[in-house]
């Protein structure tokens, strides 16, 4: 038995084709409108951003030669000498890198303590007072929206140059972001243990300690470690405004066109960041093996 495609009657076919045409036309029109809007925005932003394509083309060779110049000269026959030359200040930089990581550590610790203390006041299901909750939430929001570098600038003016300003700036930013994440973790707990502890006469602190905290502790630790990774990156930057760490050295190297130093320090930072990433990731997987695969 032969089967074929059913042939629709002329009239029905015309109707369907017209509908299809209308649909396609509408989608094309929408895409066109979107395209025009984006082009208009590009034009407007180009005016504001002083983008000149001619300038880009003119500087393109400068860009490639810049990357050519920051590359160290490594010859196979003097490899060790060349590397020693490239990393002439290896131990100085290593010390600064260590400073950077300690700044990140202190900032993470401070932010964690602050956020941990306040997050249970901001969580919807635990908060003892509405007004307090609102205030704490806004405070978290403020601390994470103002960029850490702005805090660093302010603190350098107030506390003087040095790592203290960096620790405080990154710590406050960490406090804001971790506060939000902790609050959300607290809000998603199972409420049965909370009711149980409360009905046995526990006050707020006991409820948090015995009902809420055990449920979220692995999550909180995981967020904190993730934040530590991010803070290592941040603390390698705050030196740009004089708040300690290796950033200062990198800033000087880029500004004064010490080309090979730039690549040497950048490579060190990238290696340090990757090592912390790998280590913390291992601990995080150990903490919560089921969470987030991939």
């Amino acid at each position, binding site marked *: 038995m032969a089967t074929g495609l059913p042939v629709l009657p002329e009239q029905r076919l015309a109707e369907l084709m017209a509908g299809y045409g209308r649909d396609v036309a509408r989608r094309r029109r929408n895409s066109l409108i979107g395209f025009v809007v*984006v082009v208009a*925005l*590009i034009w*407007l*932003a*180009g*005016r*504001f*951003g*002083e*983008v*000149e394509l001619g*300038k*880009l083309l003119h*500087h393109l060779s*400068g*860009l490639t030669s*810049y990357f050519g110049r920051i590359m160290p000269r490594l010859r196979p026959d003097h490899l060790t000498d060349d590397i020693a030359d490239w990393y002439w200040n290896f131990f100085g930089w290593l010390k600064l890198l*260590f*400073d950077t990581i*300690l*700044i990140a*550590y*202190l900032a993470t*610790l401070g932010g964690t303590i602050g956020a941990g203390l306040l997050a249970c006041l901001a969580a919807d299901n635990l908060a003892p007072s509405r007004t307090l909750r609102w205030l704490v939430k806004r405070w978290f929001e*403020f601390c994470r*929206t*103002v*960029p850490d*570098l*702005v805090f660093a*600038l*302010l*603190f350098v*003016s*107030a*506390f*003087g140059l*040095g*790592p*203290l300003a960096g*620790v405080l700036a990154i710590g406050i930013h960490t406090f804001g972001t971790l506060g939000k994440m902790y609050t959300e973790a607290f809000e998603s707990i199972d409420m049965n243990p909370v009711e149980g502890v409360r009905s046995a006469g526990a006050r707020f602190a006991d409820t948090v300690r015995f009902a809420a905290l055990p449920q979220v502790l692995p999550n909180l630790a995981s967020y904190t470690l993730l934040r530590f990774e991010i803070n290592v*990156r941040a603390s*390698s*930057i705050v030196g*740009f*405004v004089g708040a*300690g760490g290796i950033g200062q050295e*990198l*800033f000087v190297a*880029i*500004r004064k*066109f010490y080309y090979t130093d*730039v690549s040497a320090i*950048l490579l060190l*930072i*990238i290696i340090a*960041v*990757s090592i912390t990433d790998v280590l913390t990731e291992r601990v995080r997987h150990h903490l919560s093996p089921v969470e987030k695969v991939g």
Partner: protein
Amino acid sequence: MKGRSAIAVEDPMVVLARHEALLARPISRRIGDIGLPVAIVGLSIFSVWWLDISFAQIGPGLSQLAKFIGLMIPPSTGGHLQLFLKAMGETLAIAFLGTLSAAVVAVPLALLAAENTSPHGVIRSFVRRVLDVIRGIDTLIWALVFVGVVGLGPFAGVMAIAVSDTGGLGKLFSEAIEATRARERETIVASGGTSWMGIRFGLLPQVLPIIAGQILYFFESNTRSATIIGIVGAGGIGLQLSEQIRTYDFDQVALIVLLILIAVAAIDWISGKLRFAIIGRRPIAT
């Protein structure tokens, strides 16, 4: 009829003794319980010593900070409102153009880096490493480099965001491409289409909404980064902000911070709406 029986009150110590086996914790965990806090505290004391942070600094610093905050109220334009608004517009322009150019460059790179579209394994791993390195360098460092290459001004900022986001977006896009179903492309190729047609009609429609959501998300986060790259001279409001902090005009600093907060909130709101319209409430992979 049974009466209500009172719960027998026992000596807590007796109860504890009875369930000792349940309450006892293995020795390794008990060491951890004590050791971890000791290690954390010890490391922080060491850090404070190593970084040479003196607590004498904190008192004067705090009073200085309180003075600054006092000077911040009330925020004032200092007669530079026009300038600040223009700088804020510049910041938004930098974020917009930077994100857009990054997205345009990232799509072909992602096609090269994704397992199911890459022409060759060597090319794939090479592109991946390049993206990793780009991503490993912070936007601010890129900004500093581009200030050296193309000179001071917003153009350096656009380039910095474009380059550093190419790394992040390229990685996210390639993951989105790898998560697509192969069936659509196979159908198109089987019915006579070229492999380009397979990508255009079989793969692109699947990833486009995800990619659009990620671009919007990056635009949000770039609005924040674009506020600070001005500190190193790459255009936008950051330049004004660092100038006012250096000259101790804290009423104007407060105004600029308020401007930043408003702009960031507005962009978050708009892009949240757009993202919702495009992909619904789906979390963006981070």
